[in-house]
């Protein structure tokens, strides 16, 4: 490496204005270096993300037969004709609704509470990092063990409280399984929403509340006319993230219910995965997962447009 001057401990010296010529030379060097800087990362992203994305689309649009591959919409037709589709769609949307409602209601409630100074505030914020940092696999192990039909803590609790007279296999009932999966899911994603809402709440200038108090606004009015408008962006972020999480929920279902009982907790992500890796129908699996991808991307595009709009 040739060193023109030793930059060790270099600092921008004051009072040495660069000439226009040297500045232009520096700019030219910068332009030439651009591809060297961005190229490697761009090539990696193209190779491991965009190429597979296109490959996946191509896969979903082809069918294998003895004579080779034929092009067409057969996989999509098979997907739309499958009696499982309405169930999977309904469950996918239900999961998104659970994720959004749970994040917004629980996340906002926790954030409002943690925004009030109290001796336990710090401890509560640290405690929330436990579910936040955990992998979905760990979440599944924890809640699967709590829900365990033979030795689970849920059974133990309800039994000790006298609410049930014997241990039950909770995940064997479709509706109960849905509620319990939803609870574990909310447990793991609500802290994220809380952090987003908290940072939004802390950005609200105190004068806003003081002015509202002078105008004799009560707590609810202050919430409605000061807090909510200032949280607009936080709401949007939580909405996007929670719905993506909901649409793509997989690990809990994979580990706790396998989409069952029957197809009652089958979502698109699980269905696509199982179609490919359990039933070996690669192309149909690709079609299902591509359909899911299109839905997710459409949703995020709509939200991003909404976010760009200036605050009312």
């Amino acid at each position, binding site marked *: 490496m040739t*060193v*023109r*001057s030793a*930059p*060790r401990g*270099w600092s*921008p010296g004051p009072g040495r204005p*660069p000439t226009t010529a040297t*500045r232009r030379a520096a700019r030219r060097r910068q332009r030439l*270096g*651009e591809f*060297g800087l*961005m190229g*490697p990362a*761009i090539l990696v*992203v193209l190779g*491991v*993300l*965009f190429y*597979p*994305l296109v*490959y*996946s689309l191509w896969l979903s649009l082809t069918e294998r037969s003895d004579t080779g591959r034929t092009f067409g919409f057969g996989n999509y037709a098979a997907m739309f004709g499958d009696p499982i589709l309405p169930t999977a769609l309904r469950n996918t949307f239900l999961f998104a609704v659970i994720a959004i409602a749970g994040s917004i209601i629980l996340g906002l409630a926790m954030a409002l*509470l*943690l925004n*009030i100074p*109290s*001796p336990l505030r710090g*401890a*509560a914020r*640290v405690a929330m*990092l436990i579910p936040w*940092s*955990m*992998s*979905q*696999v*760990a979440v599944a*192990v*924890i809640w699967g*063990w*709590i829900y365990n039909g033979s*030795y689970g*803590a849920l059974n*133990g609790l309800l*039994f000790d409280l006298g609410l049930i007279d014997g241990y039950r296999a909770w995940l064997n009932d479709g509706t109960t399984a849905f509620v319990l999966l939803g609870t574990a899911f909310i*447990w793991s994603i609500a802290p994220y929403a809380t952090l*987003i809402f908290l*940072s939004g709440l802390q950005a609200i200038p105190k004068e806003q509340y003081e002015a509202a108090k002078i105008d004799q606004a009560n707590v609810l009015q202050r919430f409605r006319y000061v807090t909510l408008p200032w949280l607009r962006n936080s709401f949007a972020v939580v909405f*996007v*993230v929670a719905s993506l999480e909901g*649409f*793509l929920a997989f*690990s809990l279902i994979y*580990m706790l219910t396998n989409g069952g009982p029957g197809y009652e907790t089958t979502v698109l992500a699980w269905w696509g*995965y199982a179609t490919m890796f359990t039933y070996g129908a*690669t192309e149909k*699996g690709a079609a299902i*997962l591509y359909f899911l991808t299109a839905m*997710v991307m459409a949703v995020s595009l709509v939200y991003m447009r909404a976010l760009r709009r200036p605050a009312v």
Partner: protein
Amino acid sequence: MAGVLAGAVLIIVWSVAPFLWLLRSSLSPSGEMTRVPISWWPETVTFASYADLLAALFAPGDGTTTAQLIALGLQNSMVVGVVVTVINVVLGFAAAYGFSRARGRGWSMALNGLIISRMVPMFAIIIPLFLLFSRVGIYDTYLALVLAELAVTLPFSIWLMKSYLDTIDVELDEQALVDGATKPQMLRLIMLPAARPGVATAAIFTFLTSWNSFIFPLVLSSSPTVMTVQPQIAATYSDMRADYDVLFASTVLACVPPMILAFILQRQLTRGLLSGAIKG
């Protein structure tokens, strides 16, 4: 005030209790865990499963016992996580700097491509990656896992670091170049220290994402010498003959690195989350 305190207690219990139950179970012998009705306080506390796991970590066997399998998984997660993080910081920082300073239609289009790639769910690429890696012959290798993790972490890292670099005055880099620093020197000595919080946040997020990743290693690896800890835990969990005490101790251990990182990251957490979500 009493209401606020009660609320905080409720949040703490709700967040911690399920994990404490796991911790308690990991410290009980198997026989005690499967007793009905369950007892809320442990009669015997044993660190046997942790001892097994730690022994396997330092003297990894061939993966015949659950403890050995998990220990291999923990090591593999560490290797993949570190490699992915280093690549993210090196390639991602250079790219972030480029995107932060570059002007021109081509680059802004590439930047938009990066934004879109933040919205691609991994389900969209898992099947092609599986087929591709199998065909090329790198299925079930570290390389396959590293490449797959890069697909989801690199665009995010670039975005995160770019948003930090955007706040640094362009005059600073021009001045450095005018003073005779080479480009790599300028990046390393001037930009890297100035953007350090952003780089650290990106690195920690990358490692967290890779460590907690489940579906990629589930699909792209199969042998214990490559498979990371998350699918290994999932496999143990669904095994009917599982050693539950070892399984729970493994889950606790697998939670430790992310918890430490989350704790370190606390301050930067929200900024990182926001920039990941809004800009992404």
